């Protein structure tokens, strides 16, 4: 069909303009975005797991972060909650004056915000996740400058860290879910205790084979995983599982390595001027800053007036007042005196006579007759969140005494006595008079109490010595020398293990609460 109209005036240009307009319009409508990846907007201020592991440096960054998370991100477990669980729950200390929440109630709280029983669970898993992403991703890195030994060093430390966190979980909660990859099942069931320990041993054996005996300097050797720290933890795991031969073997490996030795002056361990000593096997580093500092000393709270500080402590949960944790039992002081152990008593505690050594009367300090933990000594005080006080998570004398304990258990009592005396000699105590296997076992228990006071060990030492039923009987039989509520410690076997936080039970239907709760 022929159908056109011509108009003389500028007809061609006009038509072209309209056509061009239409083409332009369609072009703008359908091809207006700049490029295909216009909708790809990677985070600009964060890394994502996909794409964060390409080089050796990336692996090192993740490893440093796995240690860093233990001091910077919600860190309670290895700052002071380990002493709540290990000392306050036993006979070394107690929580606050009468009328406040009791030791067990504190740990068994199922909901809320700040309870150690919840934090210890959450944090151990979070720290373990930091190790998992290394184990998930570092093997996949293709970097020609990343040597096999460097890769093994990083993986070995990640295995060590994961084992360390699961060791704490298994001791406190017994059967726990095993999360070995961050890509795995989000709602798993619990694994039996034996399986958890078997996994810990697997991780530690890999760590032992991957890791060097020493790092470049003493600082790194005590702050990073080494063959020695893996072996030390294996020794601790084996005493926990009752395999004393293996425990003695691994403690022996640590002692034979020549890397570690006892510091001459016991007080150097706690005076704040001698960190990362030859005695440190695994020492958590705090550098004075808002990011990596610690408020650890101030949380070893002395007794005080409850009501004054109740209101000004942020973080109070539902319905509980802020108690005083880790008020030393008078009985601990008596144990030092009974042993004639003035050196360690003076280093680990502040009693009425040497209260003047306190640098900074802590807030609300009310009762001058109560002994106070050493953490207030020698310039240690409330530094906000930025104190530089390291935490000794594993040290050499613990391993020596474990070797003694393990050897005594397998009948090598004489050799055990020599190691026990090594530790006593350092604090100018005469060799032990104990000779029979049972006497030596008790002597080692007493020695560990004083040597490792307020280091979160006592509860498990007692548990090994007395067994579960025996420990409950022992704790029930404690006399209340300081007029305090020691009787509020575990009174039944089920209380030796903490309840699983209710929150996780609510969300994960595959999880079963520990018996008795």
């Amino acid at each position: 069909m022929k159908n056109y109209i011509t108009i003389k005036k500028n007809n061609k240009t006009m038509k072209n303009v309209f056509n061009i307009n239409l083409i332009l319009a369609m072009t703008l409508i359908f091809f207006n975005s700049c490029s295909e990846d216009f909708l790809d907007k990677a985070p600009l201020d964060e890394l994502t797991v996909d794409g964060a592991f390409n080089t050796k440096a990336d692996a090192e960054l993740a490893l440093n972060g796995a240690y860093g998370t233990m001091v910077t991100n919600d860190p309670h477990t290895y700052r002071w909650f380990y002493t709540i669980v290990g000392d306050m729950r036993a006979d070394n200390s107690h929580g606050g004056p009468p009328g406040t929440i009791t030791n067990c109630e504190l740990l068994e709280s199922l909901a809320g915000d700040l309870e150690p029983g919840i934090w210890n669970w959450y944090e151990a898993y979070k720290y373990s996740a930091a190790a998992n992403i290394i184990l998930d991703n570092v093997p996949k890195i293709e970097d020609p400058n990343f040597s096999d030994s460097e890769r093994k060093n990083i993986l070995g430390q990640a295995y060590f860290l994961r084992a360390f966190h699961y060791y704490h979980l298994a001791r406190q909660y017994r059967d726990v879910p095993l999360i070995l990859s961050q890509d795995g099942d989000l709602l798993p069931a619990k694994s039996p205790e034996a399986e958890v320990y078997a996994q810990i041993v697997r991780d530690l054996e890999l760590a032992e084979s991957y890791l060097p005996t020493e790092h470049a300097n003493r600082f790194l050797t005590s702050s990073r995983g080494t063959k020695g720290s893996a072996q030390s933890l294996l020794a601790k795991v084996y005493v926990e599982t009752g395999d004393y031969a293996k425990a003695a073997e691994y403690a022996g490996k640590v002692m034979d390595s020549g890397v570690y030795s006892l510091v001459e002056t016991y007080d150097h361990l706690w005076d704040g001027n001698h960190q990362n000593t030859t005695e440190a096997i695994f020492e958590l580093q705090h550098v004075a800053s808002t990011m990596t500092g610690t408020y650890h000393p101030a949380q070893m709270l002395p007794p005080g007036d409850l009501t004054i500080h109740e209101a000004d402590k942020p973080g109070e949960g539902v319905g509980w007042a802020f108690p005083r944790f880790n008020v030393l039992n008078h009985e601990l002081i008596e144990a030092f005196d009974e042993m004639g152990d003035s050196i360690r008593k003076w280093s680990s505690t502040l009693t009425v006579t040497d209260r003047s050594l306190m640098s900074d009367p802590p807030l609300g300090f009310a009762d001058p007759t109560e002994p106070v933990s050493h953490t207030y000594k020698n310039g240690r005080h409330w530094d906000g969140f930025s104190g530089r006080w390291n935490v000794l998570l594993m040290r050499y004398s613990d391993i020596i005494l474990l070797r003694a304990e393990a050897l005594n258990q397998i009948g090598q009592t004489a050799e055990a006595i020599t190691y026990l005396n090594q530790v006593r000699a350092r604090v100018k105590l005469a060799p032990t008079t104990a000779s029979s296997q049972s006497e030596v076992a008790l002597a080692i228990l007493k020695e560990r109490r004083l040597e490792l006071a307020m280091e979160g060990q006592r509860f498990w030492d007692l548990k090994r010595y007395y067994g579960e039923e025996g420990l409950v009987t022992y704790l029930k039989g404690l006399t209340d020398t300081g007029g305090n509520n020691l009787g509020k410690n575990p009174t039944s076997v089920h209380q030796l293990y903490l309840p699983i936080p209710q929150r996780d039970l609510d969300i994960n239907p595959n999880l079963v609460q520990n018996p008795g709760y």
Partner: protein
Amino acid sequence: MKLNPLLSSNWQYNLKKLTNVVKISVLLSVIMTLSSFAHTNVYSQEKISVNVENTEIINILDNIESTTDLRFFYDNDIYDFNKKITLTINEETIATAISLIFENNIDFRLKQNVVILEKVKLTEKNNEVSSEEDDLEQRVITGLITDNFGSPLPGATIIEVGTNNGTTSDFDGNFSIALENDEASLQISFIGFVSQTVIVGDSNSFTIQLSPDESSLDEIIVTGYGTTRKGDITSSISVLDLDGVGEKAITDVGQMLAGRSAGVRVVQGSGQPGAAPTIFIRGLSSLSGNTQPLYVIDGVVSYSLGALDPNNIEDITVLKDASAAGIYGAAGASNGVVLVTTKKGRKGEYKVSVNSYAGFSSVIKTIPVLDNAGTVDYFNDLNGSGSSIPAAELAIDNNWQDLIYREAAPVTGVNAAISGGGENGSFFVGLGYLDQDGIVVSSGNKRYSLSINLDQTINEWLSFGSHFNYTRSNVKTIPDNMAARFGGAIQAALVTPRFQPIFNDDGTYSTQARTQGGLNNPLGYIYGNDNLNVINNIVTDVNFTAKINSDLSFKTQMGVVILNNHYSSFKDPRLTSEAKGVKGEGSLNTGEAVRFIFDNTLNYDKTFDKHQLGVIIGSSTSEEKIHTSLQTKRNFANANIRTLNSASETIVNSASKSAWSLQSYFARANYSFDDKYLITASFRTDGSSRLPKDNRWESFKTISAGWKIFKEDFMSDVDFISDLKLRVGYGETGNLPAGTNSYAYRLLFNEYAIDTFTTGPGVWLGTSSGNNNLEWETSDQFNVGIDFSAFDNKLYFSADYYSKKTNNMIYPLSLPWHTGFFDQIVNLDGQIENTGFEFAINANLVEKDDFSWSTAFNMSFNDNVVTNIPDTAIITDGWLQNLGGNVTITKNDLPIGSFWGKISEGVDPQTGDLIFADNGKFQFMGSPLPDFTYGFVNEINYKNWDLNIVIDGVSGNEVYNTGRQELEEMRLLHNQSADIVNRWRKPGDITNIPRATILDQNGNSKISSRFVEDGSYLRVRDISLSYDFKENVIKGLNISGLRLYANLKNWFTITDYTGYTPEINRGGSSATIQGVDYGTYPQPKTFNVGMNIEF
């Protein structure tokens, strides 16, 4: 003669549309009397060539239109325009061409470039020669048509009543018409204005002012990416009646919206000057995503209304249901869309207008607290005699509320606007200044605004427009919305004992020597942290519209939205002991978000016979980049130098940066048949960077239909009904996660020691797990509504029922801690359902020359319920530190964010403790969401007086009064409410206030229904009275308008709520924390006087 193609084409366009609605054949046979013009018109000499075979006449005309400046104008009935002809015309004039095309059966007139086709009158045909002479003998009337502002109205239609004789006004609003009859009256009409009939009488010259017709069905309103006639709406859209609102002392856009639209709830959660209100349209429909409507300013999708000075707003349209909002698909369209059009210049007149006002605000009420004797008595009761306060101290009696609330906080505002336009363009420039002191000392806001709008016709097919809206606010805030012990000044003014001195001996503000917990006095909190937040808000765009042919046009728009803020604060070491201890602390936090938007739309509009079709297709691209920088330092060398360079200790030094993008394609078609049956459908597909690659794209469809019942034949006898329309619509919309990369497995930075004193960087897995399966949150909404007008639009009624369901709710669901994560962003199973009914009635009760009264009432009922979410989803919120934890819960079969706690059954007379129902089981304590809300606006004019009253209210909602919880806590050495003198003291006391106890083992002071109060209120939000000086008064002043006004805001409220104000919103726009009051900055009452002047 100069041409004005845009004007003439608009004029033709409007009239063409009109033909479909108002079947007035009269209009279409308008006779141009300026026939003499035709002969001298350049267009009459234009040469036209046509060469067609078997082609419809209508197409020939269309083609002539599209290739020349000539525009045809005709009534379809006068000739068979679909007749096919074969024709060759070679360079002939239009006159010849028309006679050839129509074979001499059609006459024509030429006005400028417009060819008006009309039937040949038989008489004229018989007497062609004399026709011109007859015209000359007729009486000619001239006149000027203006709008209500006196601006000329070009293109108004003037018809001699009872004849086919008519004309239109020219560019300057002037017309002249030769009358056919001696005793004539003229009917003047213009779209959007009330038609007027004028009896000609003896006068030969008239000035006719038309007044706007607000309820006109022909009013063109803005919808998403286009416009529509009000009468053709098929979905739920509110057009706000802002008549005169902008000319008053309005400091915030929220004040313009409140009470004026059914289904739109405005919550002014704080009285802090500069605090933006939150706006909820048809309830809360998202758990963690956005709950606020999408704001579109002059077509540009913006963050908020923050860039707007209310004085520069022309129109606000609210798209309430999904069938209307669905064209915006994503980005919060689930919560409705607020479309704002700013003021433009008017062609033909230059105008300067000034609105200036001044006034005072003050606190509405104060809350009674214990006097010194009462406080001491309470302290002793609580703590034994250990708290005895020395008599010397008790001589001090500070009324802290008087000390923090200004008796009369001044506000002044000035807005000036210059606008105007020539033939091819118009402009509007608005300048504004607002200086508003808050009712709490030290707080206030200074706002500067600039608005520039330009429109320009570039040539006959291309036009250009640009908007620039800018505000700069300088906001000084005081710390509120929290407990006194955490720094909340409003609460501190209540719980600080009156015997506490203002200053310590060293000149710092006192902390509480006799009380607990490091509490500063309220003045210490207020003055101790000197702060200023400077916020720059820009929304600007440039757009071009190209006419491709008479049916098809293309618009491209480039917009930029910038939000920039700069917060600085300084804690002066001379003012508080806290700051003294750290030698001063200064912060400087800056942030900027820049959004770029590029929209392109192709618009097709065509009418043929009884069919009308409109199609829009388009695309939209947007990208936003956000960055912030946070710095805090301590240890200042000198307290007078507050810049951070003078401080030596770094406390915070941090930054963040993120970006997102959105790509969208959309299409919408609307079709109407016979102007009775309307249908609209749209489709939009959105791709967002905020979701994982595989789930990025989502499509949203809408469909809606309307039936204009009143146009049916069976309604033709019902004269009093001017509109009756049924609307039904269904639509889908979407919502995105709040974060820019929340789906990713993110690693966060931390540090660890690399030697004794140095740290090195590390990364750790963040507490939120990624989710590569994250999808869009979607909601769908069904709406059915009816519109009804009667008695010449004197009565208007509209009602809607809707049902809105949100699916795939995006929510950070708690993960078990053993996963190593705290939560994971997921699409939660289950729904949030909002169902509601809303209606609006407008009535012009009286319409007399010197007295009129119009009233508008709207009411909305909304029912919100959460259903089918997993039992393992723990959704609690509203953390109240020390007072019992989270106060709200979101769970199945309850409204979102319901209050959750123990039900108190009063005080046990034996123990003085509360008795809790069901052994203290936590249960539903009430909902913060109202059962219904309402607004009632009255406008009364008497002669020069104008009285405007806005009343609004909510009913059936609860407020959790945390402020009172702290005031009746009775376990700390703080001052308390005066009511606690009635507390339980000894066994046998019957009272509703429990005992004072430090340990409070029963939890009397913790979250319970004891602190849940009825939040219903009815409030007279605004009363305005103005006086308009008429022309004769102001003639000598060389101005064209003068109006004086006074208004009262928030002066009368009826409520049972015991706190400062029931309209509170601690949680802002968060869906799960509504209705929690915790020492929120109270809303003020205000008195203003002002004036409007026009030049």
